[in-house]
C-alpha cells in the first residue's frame, strides 16, 4: 500500500549561499495493508522528513514513493489531492484549521469531502469526539481556543473520521493521558484490522510495541550517519 524505493531528499538553501544539505539517501520501505511500521531514529535523523515525503509536502529528489499505486514523487497536484482525499490520511502533531469553524465540522470535513452525507458524517464525527472525551458542549466551538491535549484529540478524531486505506501518524499518543492514549491505540488497532497500512512515529515505547509490527531505523538513510 505504501512503498518507498530508493528515495533521496536534499534541501538547497538559495539564500544561504546555495548550500545543499542531503538529508536522506536510499530510503526504502514497504507497508502492506493491515501492517503498522514504526519509524525510529534519534531526533534529526529524518523521521518527520520521511513522513512528509510520503504525504507529498516535501518533494523527493529521486526514487519512487508509491501510495495506492500513485507515485507521489512525480504526481500532478490534482492526483495528490485526490490521493489525500480518498486514500492517504495524515495525523500531524498540530491542528491547522480555519478559525471560527465548529469542532464537529472540523472532524466531519474529511467525510464530507469524500461525499458522505451530512448527517452520517456528523454522526460519525460525534462518535469519535465522544470516544476521545471531548465534551459535547465544546463541539460547537472552534478548536483554536482548546488546550493542547484537546486540540491533539480533535486532530486525531479528524484523522480517523474517514477510513483511509493508508495512514501516517506523527506521535499520535504524545501529550495524552492514560485513558485517551488507550482510545487512540484501539483506534489504530481497529484501523489495522480493517486493512489500513500505517507508517508512524511513536516515541512512546509501550505504544510502539503494542501496535507496530516492524521498525525501520531512519538513521540508515541519513547520509553520513549510516554505519
Amino acid at each position, binding site marked *: 500500500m505504501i512503498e518507498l524505493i530508493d528515495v533521496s531528499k536534499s534541501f538547497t538553501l538559495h539564500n544561504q549561499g546555495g548550500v545543499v544539505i542531503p538529508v536522506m539517501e536510499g530510503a526504502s520501505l514497504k507497508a502492506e495493508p493491515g501492517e503498522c511500521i514504526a519509524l525510529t531514529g534519534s531526533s534529526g535523523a529524518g523521521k518527520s522528513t520521511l513522513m*512528509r515525503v510520503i504525504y507529498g509536502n516535501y518533494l523527493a529528489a529521486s526514487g519512487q514513493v508509491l501510495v495506492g499505486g500513485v507515485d507521489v514523487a512525480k504526481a500532478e*497536484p490534482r492526483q495528490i489531492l485526490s490521493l489525500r482525499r480518498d486514500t492517504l490520511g495524515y495525523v500531524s502533531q498540530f491542528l491547522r484549521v*480555519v*478559525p471560527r469553524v465548529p469542532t464537529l465540522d472540523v472532524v466531519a470535513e474529511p467525510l464530507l469531502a469524500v461525499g458522505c452525507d451530512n448527517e452520517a458524517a456528523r454522526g460519525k464525527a460525534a462518535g469519535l469526539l465522544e470516544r476521545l472525551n471531548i465534551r459535547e458542549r465544546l463541539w460547537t466551538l472552534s478548536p483554536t481556543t482548546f488546550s493542547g491535549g484537546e486540540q491533539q484529540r480533535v486532530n486525531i478524531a479528524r484523522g480517523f473520521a474517514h477510513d483511509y486505506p493508508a495512514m501516517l501518524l506523527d506521535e499520535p499518543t504524545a501529550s495524552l493521558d492514560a485513558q485517551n492514549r488507550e482510545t487512540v491505540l484501539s483506534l489504530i488497532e481497529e484501523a489495522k484490522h480493517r486493512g489500513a497500512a500505517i507508517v508512524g512515529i511513536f516515541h512512546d515505547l509501550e505504544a510502539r510495541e503494542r501496535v507496530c509490527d516492524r521498525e525501520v531505523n531512519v538513521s540508515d538513510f541519513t547520509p553520513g550517519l549510516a554505519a
Partner: protein
Amino acid sequence: MTPLLQVKGIEKRYGARIGCTDVNFDLYPGEVMGIVGESGSGKSTLLNCMAGHLEPDAGQVIFDTRVDGPVDTVTMSEPERRMLGRTDWAFVHQHARDGLRMSVSAGGNIGERLMAVGDRHYGDIRDKAIDWLGRVEIDEARVDDRPSAFSGGMQQRLQIARNLVTGPRLVFMDEPTGGLDVSVQARLLDLLRGLVREMGLSAIIVTHDLAVVRLLADRLMVMKNGHVVEAGLTDQVLDDPQHAYTQLLVSSVLQV
C-alpha cells in the same frame, strides 16, 4: 476530465516592460489555485488577462463553456465574453466599491446580476437576494440599505453574494481579504471555503497573504517580475520551496 480553464502562454507587456509572460496552467473543476508574489510581480495583470479585463498580447485562455465546450475567451467576441462574465464567471475585486454599485440598495446589487441573466419576477429576485444576504451573514433587515452605509467587511461580503448569486463555475478573486481586520478575514475565509465545497466552485485567488492561501488554495503559483518561478501543491510549495525567491518569501513571514 476536461480542465475548466486552460491558460496557455499568456503574455502582457506594458511597452517594453513585462506585465506577465509565459504563464501556463490547467485548472480543474473544484480546484482552488492561489497566486502569490510581491506587489508588482504581475499577479493582478495575469488575473485581469484571464478574466477578460485586459487583453493579453499573446496566449490563450480556454474555458470549458456549458454549451460549446472549450473555447478561447481571448478571441471570443466582446458580447460573448460579457455574457460569460455575468454567468459562469465572477470577479471579486480587492476594493468592494469597485465591484458594487454604491448608490443602489444591497438587494438591488444582488438582483442586478440576476436580471442580467433574464430574471424578471421582482418577488423572486428579492427572495433570492435575501437568501444570499443570509448566506454571507448580513442581516436581512439591511436589504434596502445602500452599501455606502455598510462596513468594509460587510461590503466585501455583499460583493461576494452579488458575484455568486448566479451560480458561477469560476471565481476570480483579487486580494479578497486584503484591508480587512483579522476577525472579519477569518469569517470570510470560512464562508469562501464553505461556498467552494457546497457549490463545487473553482477559484483563482490572488493574494500576498501566505496564511490565506494555505487555508484556501489547493495549488499555488509563485510569481516574480512577471514570471512564474514555482508552482505546485500549496503545502509542498510552502513547506519545501524550491526556488530562491519562494524560500525568501516563506522565510520572511512573521510567526504569530
